[in-house]
């Protein structure tokens, strides 16, 4: 025991004291990792310690292993201790082995999208959209799907740190007190920096704090800025109002560099509403029409009926031209493409009150103001355009807010800075010098999920909880409130913004549950819950009944902000000095998969091919073929066919970055587009050091780029790029004659609805006898007309089916593993081609070429007609993949699955095998979901109902392009879709008779505009 005298029991106690509830036991394990603890343990309990260090005989080894196996499950029990309420689906209570679904919400850029999180034994494993939530309506996007991996990210920050050293929450609270007293005394020194906040609870806390400390200033910064939208709304409506679109009423939509189908709050809802008016079925008499004016392909532009590639700085002139066409006093109209604009204007005029013009987030406020003015003139406001109060707690111009903060920091005025989330050191505008300014602040606190660039420069770093770990609330794009409920106790002792604010306000360790529930109790006039029921619900309490319903539904009923009567000003400001017309213009966008850089350590999102370029793992400089040639950076085909390209030096306002150039058709000439968010240095093992840091050339005066960029070939030779679809897809001759993409205009469709129809294949032409399907015939229908190529299905599939990521090098070697891919084809003039997105899952052929060639029968025909893979029978000859004409099979060339990282284990879907090296895998139509439904139906002695089985891809799809069901049921949705005249299958001449078929792409071009 003499040793123990040297032991720092105080620090142990401090650490133990820092832990709560059930974590105590798990955390002993963490404690025991320290050497001093080991020493103590060996001294205190010598016999146990020696048993293992001396080596173990067989008998004790088996005993120990048995115990470890038995207790391994315990580590997995991480049920939150408060009452969380599962979504409507029964069972209401936990049945081992049965997943439960809980409604909560994920925020991105402050705005909430409702999710249903699937939980297996209290680990969330899958994210779905919440059908009751107005921003989701059951759909989910890549960030929602990817967020489950972010939860289990082994690189998440796990401990409070003080200047890099491990510390505790209580020490942080202690350290905070002098700062708070100083702030109370002297006023101005303490600053808060948050991201966009729509949370009513957090808003209330902030107001309380600001009231208690009048000198404190609250700044906001979100790198994917909505300042243009806010300022544009203020120009048009006089205040920071929120604009919500109702696309179900819109016959004509004009997107002015807007990617409303993929970006911004409510995009899933917009995609859903857009598709509802786009779908062509028997009896459809009209569909909507979409015009897009943009520089680089967005999802919106790629599905537009008419798209004009235009330099970003010229979009304003086109907006003015449309306004002028409608009779508004707008100067500075674009002079080119007059007939195009005239036709568009006539279309708008024909659809007064049933049209909408949407300006893009990256366009200056004046474009938004013009869009509002046009909508006002057309009588769309109140019909397709709804104006509400802002859901944000404090709508503000983030750029100005951060500018002021940086200036104050540089001036030494800021004595303490508390940063709640975000990563401003990485993503602040380059000219603010935020990194240097940080060093001038004597006390810096950063709440963040990772120990990132900003944390590194902070005195205190607090690990932030994931949204699935904590209580909170947030508003949707229309203001609807969701109470966020945790599905799992915090994995790494993280704290949420609400907890940090509670500590700032009261200096107390208040659980977020109590804060949120008390806020809503008080707001609804109920008294705060008595302490003894702080964690449980009171069955007879009227508030708790309501609260339970909110948690159950995932929305607070009636909390949407009401539309208000508003009129946009139709006075259009005169144009600024016309921007430089010649030279190369740089367009900056946030990244479609890693957003502003916050998902940089998310392997799924990194590997996900970007929707338009099909490149993963880094940002590239997009240029049109002509422009690349003009600037001498055009990579030869011999490079691009090999997933390689040239590295170029991009210089903008004196800053040079080296990054790969990628030539893409349909890009506006003299425009180079690049996304920011890459180039992280402290993102984690996956995200560090990949891509080019474009924030370094993002200036407060050119947040979205501008003219004056230069590119130069770096002459460094071929550089590998993880592009999963090479340029061959561009060759229209090849694609056209294969009948892969079948498309027509709506007018052509009305004339000949059977344009895509093939002869029925003759089953008797097969060498082998046909199968009977007495029970079910599972099938899928994919509507190409409404697929926007958003990638939601790809990540949903990855998450549902435990699909491994393989890394950039392996993608360059053409070994990506996604079971579902979205093929992209171009048609027409390479300057501005039409784009087609074609999701390709397994076709589940009735005469499957993969089945007869497998020498061991590892892939076989199921009774329902699925091409089943038996992983443990597969020896890996790859013959099936060679013989698959659709190339949907994926081979584990190496041991791609991560069997070892403990943090990732609870994330996996327990219903799906994790594949090993040397095994073929492919889309199964989510056979685990089929089986679950079949078992349920069998137990109840009935057939599986239509719609009871929803595949992961189908569930995520915002446009409901994917429909799955039983062909033996003539009334199922999928049977009816297959009876549509536009139904066709891929490669019908091969007589494979695929179960997955497509509905031909139908667009609605304006007959007045010649293609």
């Amino acid at each position, binding site marked *: 025991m003499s040793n123990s005298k040297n032991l720092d029991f105080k620090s142990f106690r401090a650490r133990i004291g820092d832990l709560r509830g059930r974590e105590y036991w798990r955390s002993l394990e963490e404690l025991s990792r320290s050497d001093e603890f080991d020493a103590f343990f060996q001294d205190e309990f010598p016999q146990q310690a020696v048993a293992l260090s001396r080596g173990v005989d067989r008998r004790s080894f088996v005993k120990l292993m048995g115990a470890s196996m038995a207790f391994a499950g315990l580590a997995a029990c991480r049920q939150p201790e408060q009452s969380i309420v599962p979504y409507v689906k029964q069972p209401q209570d936990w049945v081992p082995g049965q997943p439960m679904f809980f409604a909560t919400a994920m925020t991105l850029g402050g705005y909430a999208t409702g999710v249903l999180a699937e939980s297996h034994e209290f680990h969330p494993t899958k994210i779905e959209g919440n059908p009751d939530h107005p921003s989701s309506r059951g759909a989910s996007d890549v960030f929602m799907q990817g967020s489950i991996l972010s939860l289990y990210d082994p690189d998440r920050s796990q401990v409070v740190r003080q200047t890099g050293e491990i510390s505790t929450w209580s020490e942080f609270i202690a350290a905070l007190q002098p700062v708070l007293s100083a702030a109370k005394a002297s006023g101005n020194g303490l600053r808060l920096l948050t991201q966009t906040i729509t949370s009513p609870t957090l808003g209330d806390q902030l107001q309380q704090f600001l009231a208690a400390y009048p000198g404190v200033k609250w700044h906001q910064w979100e790198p994917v800025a909505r300042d243009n939208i806010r300022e544009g709304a203020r120009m048009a409506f006089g205040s920071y109002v929120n604009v919500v679109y109702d696309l179900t009423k819109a016959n004509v939509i004009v997107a002015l560099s807007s990617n409303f189908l993929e970006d911004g709050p409510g995009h899933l809802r917009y995609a859903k509403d857009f598709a509802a008016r786009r779908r062509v079925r028997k009896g459809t008499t009209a569909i909507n029409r979409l015009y897009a004016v943009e520089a680089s392909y967005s999802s919106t532009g790629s599905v537009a009926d008419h798209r004009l590639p235009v330099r970003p700085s010229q979009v304003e002139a086109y907006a003015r031209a449309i306004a002028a066409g409608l009779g508004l006093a707008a100067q500075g109209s674009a002079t080119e493409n007059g007939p195009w604009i005239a036709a568009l204007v006539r279309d708008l005029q024909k659809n007064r009150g049933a049209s909408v013009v949407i300006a893009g987030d990256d366009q200056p406020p004046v474009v938004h103001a013009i869009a509002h003015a046009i909508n006002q003139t057309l009588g769309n406001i109140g019909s397709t355009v709804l104006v509400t109060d802002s859901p944000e707690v404090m709508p503000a111009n983030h750029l100005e807010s951060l500018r002021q903060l940086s200036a104050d920091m540089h001036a030494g005025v800021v004595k303490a800075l508390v940063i709640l989330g975000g990563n401003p050191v990485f993503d602040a505008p380059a000219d603010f010098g935020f990194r240097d300014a940080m060093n001038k602040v004597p006390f810096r606190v950063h709440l963040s999920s990772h120990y990132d660039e900003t944390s590194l420069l902070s005195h205190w770093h607090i690990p932030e909880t994931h949204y699935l770990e904590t209580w909170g609330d947030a508003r949707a794009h229309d203001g609807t409130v969701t109470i966020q409920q945790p599905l799992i106790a915090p994995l790494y002792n993280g704290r949420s913004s609400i907890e940090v604010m509670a500590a700032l306000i009261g200096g107390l360790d208040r659980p977020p549950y109590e804060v949120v529930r008390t806020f809503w109790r008080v707001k609804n006039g109920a008294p705060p819950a008595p302490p003894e029921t702080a964690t449980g619900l009171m069955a007879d309490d009227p508030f708790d009944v309501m609260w339970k319903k909110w948690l159950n539904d995932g929305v607070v009923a009636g909390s949407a902000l009401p539309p208000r009567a508003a009129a946009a000003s139709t006075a259009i400001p005169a144009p600024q000095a016309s921007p430089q017309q010649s030279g190369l213009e740089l367009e900056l966008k946030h990244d479609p998969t890693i957003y502003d850089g916050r998902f940089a350590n998310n392997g799924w999102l990194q590997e996900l091919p970007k929707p338009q370029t099909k490149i993963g793992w880094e940002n590239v400089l997009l240029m049109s073929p002509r422009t690349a040639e003009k600037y001498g950076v055009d990579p030869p085909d011999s490079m691009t*066919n090999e997933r390689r390209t040239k590295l170029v030096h991009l210089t903008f306002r004196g800053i040079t970055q080296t990054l790969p150039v990628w030539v893409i058709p349909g890009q506006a000439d003299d425009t180079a587009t690049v996304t920011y968010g890459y180039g992280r240095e402290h993102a984690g093992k996956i995200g560090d050091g990949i891509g080019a840091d474009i924030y370094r050339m993002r200036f407060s005066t050119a947040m979205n780029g501008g003219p004056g960029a230069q590119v130069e070939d770096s002459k460094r030779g071929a550089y590998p790029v993880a592009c999963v679809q090479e340029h061959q897809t561009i060759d229209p001759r090849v694609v056209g004659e294969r009948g892969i993409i079948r498309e027509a205009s709506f007018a052509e469709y009305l004339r000949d609805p059977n344009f895509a129809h093939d002869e029925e294949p003759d089953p008797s032409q097969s060498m082998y006898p046909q199968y009977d399907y007495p029970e079910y015939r599972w099938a899928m229908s994919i509507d190409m007309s409404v697929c926007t190529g958003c990638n939601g299905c790809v990540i949903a599939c990855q998450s549902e089916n435990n699909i491994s990521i393989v890394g950039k090098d392996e993608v360059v070697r053409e*070994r990506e593993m996604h079971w579902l891919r979205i093929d992209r084809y171009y048609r027409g003039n390479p300057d501005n081609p039409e784009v087609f997105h074609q999701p390709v899952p397994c076709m589940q052929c009735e005469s499957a070429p993969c089945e007869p060639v497998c*020498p061991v029968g590892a892939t076989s025909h199921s009774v329902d007609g699925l091409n089943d893979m038996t992983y443990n029978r597969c020896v890996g000859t790859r013959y099936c993949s060679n013989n698959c004409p659709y*190339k949907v099979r994926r081979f584990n060339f190496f041991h791609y699955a991560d069997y070892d990282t403990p943090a990732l284990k609870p994330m996996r879907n327990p219903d799906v095998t994790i594949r090993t*090296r040397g095994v073929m895998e492919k889309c199964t139509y989510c056979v685990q979901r089929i089986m679950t439904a079949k078992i349920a139906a069998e137990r109840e002695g009935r057939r599986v109902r239509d719609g009871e089985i929803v595949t992961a891809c189908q569930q995520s799809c915002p446009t409901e392009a994917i429909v799955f069901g039983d062909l033996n049921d003539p009334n199922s949705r999928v049977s009816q879709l297959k009876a549509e005249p536009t139904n066709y299958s891929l490669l019908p001449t091969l007589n494979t008779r695929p179960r997955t078929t497509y509905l031909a792409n139908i667009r609605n071009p304006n007959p007045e505009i010649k293609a």
Partner: protein
Amino acid sequence: MAERDQPPLHEIRPTRQLESVPDRFIPQPIVEPGHTFATITDHISSIVLRKKTPLGWYLGFAVSLVGMFVLNLTIGKILFVGVGLWGINHPVGWGFDIINFVWWIGIGHAGTLISAILLLLHQEWRTSINRFAEAMTLFAVASAGLYPALHTGRPWFDYWLFPYPNTMAIWPQFRSPLMWDVFAVSTYATVSLLFWYVGMVPDLATLRDRTKNKFGRFIYGMGALGWRGSAKHWHRYEHAYLLLAGLSTPLVLSVHTIVSFDFAVAQVPGWHATFFPPYFVAGAVVAGFAMVLTLAIPLRKAFKLEGFITTKHLENMGKIMLATGLMVFYSYAVEMFMAYYSGDPFERYTFYTRVTGPYRHYWYMLILCNCLAPNLMWVKRFRTSPMWLFITAQFVNVGMWLERFVIIPESLTRDFLPSSWGTYHGTRWDWGMYLGSIGLFLFLLFLFIRFLPMISIFEMRTMLPEAQAHGEEHS
């Protein structure tokens, strides 16, 4: 009466008097004049039985050991890490592994053709080359066998391809051409081994009797199976050998036919063609003869075997190479024409890409090697010149490898959906495995020429004019 005194026509031997008959119509002797029974036996057995191993053998064996080292390294790495070390990827599931498999199997064909078909066709000149051609077959099959065994993702489960009784009552899937391959290749290996071994029994007895080494006497004695050269032995031997020849003959056609089914049965454009079996067999024969020439020419020089492997042999092999080379050329033409004539866009595009795509250089090289180079054999000066024959054989060796490259991975890079098109390159591990399998082949070959008679002693003896009368009646 005078006419009756004339010997039968076929016994007329060319004499000096028949000046007007051009040289090419005069049959060349199979064994150089001057050899006797004793010299033949001495010469061939001394290669094996001499004490001093020539330096050249050590050098060659050292090279083969380097190859073996590379092979073992590659195999070890592949077993530990996975076949991802190779250049295969998602459209291209088969690369060097199957190219080399088909290449080696093809090479093996000459051995069987020489021993079996030429035996049945009474082509006696085959006697000089059949032993090592058969050995070559065997070693080529050994090298070939490495690939299907190791190309699977989980080679430790390869035995699942065999129909062995198991508790789960799971059988292989007999519709798969890979299953047919398993039977075809294993049968081929077994029959080739038996044929080679049975043919060697009398010679092993000769070695047993002549060796002064006790250990050698024991080993050769074991191999000789108690051969004493009795008439009964000879009688049974002749029967067994003939039967085995009969068994092997269909194998020459069937093995490569079935290998070609791996492709023809699949529906990849560029693979799916009904004429693949004869096309592949012709290719196999040309490849095999090229390899026999590649081996025979240096061996003949090194071991002074010009007396046994005469220019006549070389010339005959050159002729076969020309004939089968032209068949291969014709196959290429048919393939191209059918792609065009079928009107099938996929097929057409695949062949269009062969000529114009990223791998066009391979195709041009292929045409040079397999279609143009063998035409040298039209000229007698080339086909009787060991150097030119050797050069031509090298063209064919390379060309046949390229043919499989063009067919196997290249077709996969351009199949049905353009979105899935890809590229293919061998990695260092592909090359390691390829060079390693050549190392294995050479390793076995060097052991063979050092420890076993590379030319059939007793059969060569029958080729002498003094044995001729009997010989003809015997066979």
